[in-house]
């Protein structure tokens, strides 16, 4: 067996090597951030200037945010769609999860099976009928339609059901004896108890919606309704060679995610580990 000291020394070396590895791993992000601070003429100088010689950060970000391109509008669209989708999806998933785990009723298992089956259907296999449906019921090219596409999450239902099942049935029974209906029990007893799980799911749903490229690509046509992923792509093809601006836009789009992730990282990582969740 190794001595404590020897172990620590070895651990230190591995840490240093791993740290170097992580810097290499994050290099694209570092490059993106630094490029967004540079003047355009310095972007492709070689050797790469890891510390910009000529700082242009304020001008770049000002150009992206207050230039001709309506970046704030797209930002607002993204916030709106992501926040509403997250709230609605959490509510619907939590209700279903509660119904499937805490209320005993006929056909409950059968209905749960139906929900389960839909989880196996790849989203892209149903894009065409969804598109036809949306065109015919007027949800095409609207934020409402986009929000609805992200609101019925089987995954969220699974995750939260898992947590509701962990709640002792006595809580529910005793509340029922005291005359509380399920609506009341759900809202004032069950939900507060699974708050951490809901928070985890909410963060994940927010990230997924914020990053969603495919649904806006297909279901949104009007320029003024676009969310960030497509707005960034358009900005890229419009800005052509202005890479410092493109990078400033990319940084702006990713930043809220990184902040949310760092604040909520513990619950995100736990949630993912727990449910083996994948967007």
């Amino acid at each position, binding site marked *: 067996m190794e001595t404590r000291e020897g172990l620590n020394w070895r651990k230190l070396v591995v840490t240093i090597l791993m740290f170097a590895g992580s810097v290499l791993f994050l290099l694209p992000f570092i490059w993106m951030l630094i490029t967004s601070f540079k003047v355009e003429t310095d972007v492709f100088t070689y050797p790469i200037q890891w510390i910009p010689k000529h700082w242009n950060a304020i001008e770049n970000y000002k150009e992206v945010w207050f230039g001709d391109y309506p970046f704030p509008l797209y930002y607002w669209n993204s916030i709106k769609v992501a926040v509403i989708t997250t709230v609605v999806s959490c509510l619907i998933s939590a*209700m279903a999860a509660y119904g499937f785990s805490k209320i005993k009723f006929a056909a409950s298992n059968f209905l749960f099976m139906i929900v389960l089956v839909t989880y196996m259907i790849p989203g892209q296999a149903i894009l065409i009928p969804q598109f036809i449906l949306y065109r015919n019921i007027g949800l095409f090219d609207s934020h409402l339609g986009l929000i609805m596409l992200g609101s019925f999450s089987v995954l969220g239902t699974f995750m939260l059901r898992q947590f509701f099942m962990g709640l002792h049935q006595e809580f529910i029974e005793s509340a029922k004896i005291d005359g509380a209906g399920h609506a009341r029990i759900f809202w004032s007893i069950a939900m507060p108890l699974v708050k951490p799980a809901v928070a985890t799911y909410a963060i994940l749903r927010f990230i997924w919606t914020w990053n969603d490229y495919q649904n806006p690509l297909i279901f949104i046509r009007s320029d003024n309704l676009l969310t960030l992923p497509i707005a960034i792509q358009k900005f890229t093809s419009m800005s052509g060679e202005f890479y410092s601006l493109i990078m400033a836009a990319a940084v702006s789009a990713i930043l809220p995610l990184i902040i949310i992730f760092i604040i909520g990282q513990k619950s995100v990582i736990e949630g993912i580990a727990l449910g083996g969740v*994948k967007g």
Partner: protein
Amino acid sequence: MGQNIETLSQKPPAARKRKGWSLQRGETLSGFLFVSPMLIGVSILVLIPIIATLVLGFADWNFVQGFDGIRWVGLQNFINLFQDEMFIRSIRNNFIFLLTVPIYLLVSMVLAVLIDRYVYLKGYFKIAYFVPYVSMTVAVAVVWQVLFQPSYGPINEMLKAIGISDPPKWIADPHFALISIMMISIWISIGFNMIIYIAGLQSIPKDLYEAADIDGANAWTKFRRITFPLLSPTSFFLLVTGIIATFKVFDIIAVMTQGGPIGSTTMMVWYLYDTAFVNLKVGYASAIAVVLFVFVLLITFGQWLAEKKWVNY
């Protein structure tokens, strides 16, 4: 929370009267009410569409013709598909893309073991390797597009500097485009898989390692004899989710290569999108969707079989 229960228990016991079979009926009603938003949403947005996909697979139809323009062609779409060079190419690329899965599984597993047992600052490493996974694919793809720029991009500048005079043109080169996309995909996937592996490691009993230490086993032996085999349920789970995920690859292709150059990065979902929403061939694209669905179904079924047979939790 405790407070809530207290206030509830102060209610008069009169409410207890509703009992008997009406109680069960009430339960059923509440049950339906609670699950119905989810059920209705899933039925309208998933179940009915998948049936429609299966039906449309047998039609020849163009969006602009309206419903009257539907012509039923039997299996013709599927017959055409398997003579369609672009489709065959897409499927082939999908299968080549499968190679990313074992690669990132291996990398993620090694990283997970190192982070779990052999480093300080665990929290930092978990975040650092996870960042690509939470970042917006489009933004990341835009960055890589610039990094891979053939003539003055940073990657090729670096390669030239270390003496490679004729570096590949990456995503602009038909021979390297798919590999470039695969590398980025591996880079994005590592964080997610690593986190699941770290969770898997927590469930391995510590005394196994202590026993191995007493027997004088070195790190490699411990990995080979304890860690690797005991992680096999996790690996299996990640393998299946990973394989299914490769069949759904779309964003990165749409942003970086649009299936090109000369079809070298076309994949099933990209081809589906291109056929349906660019070329407006609804029936034909639905047939592709059916094939995609069948692939995913087969994998899921295979997983279920294999789980029954081999994996013991």
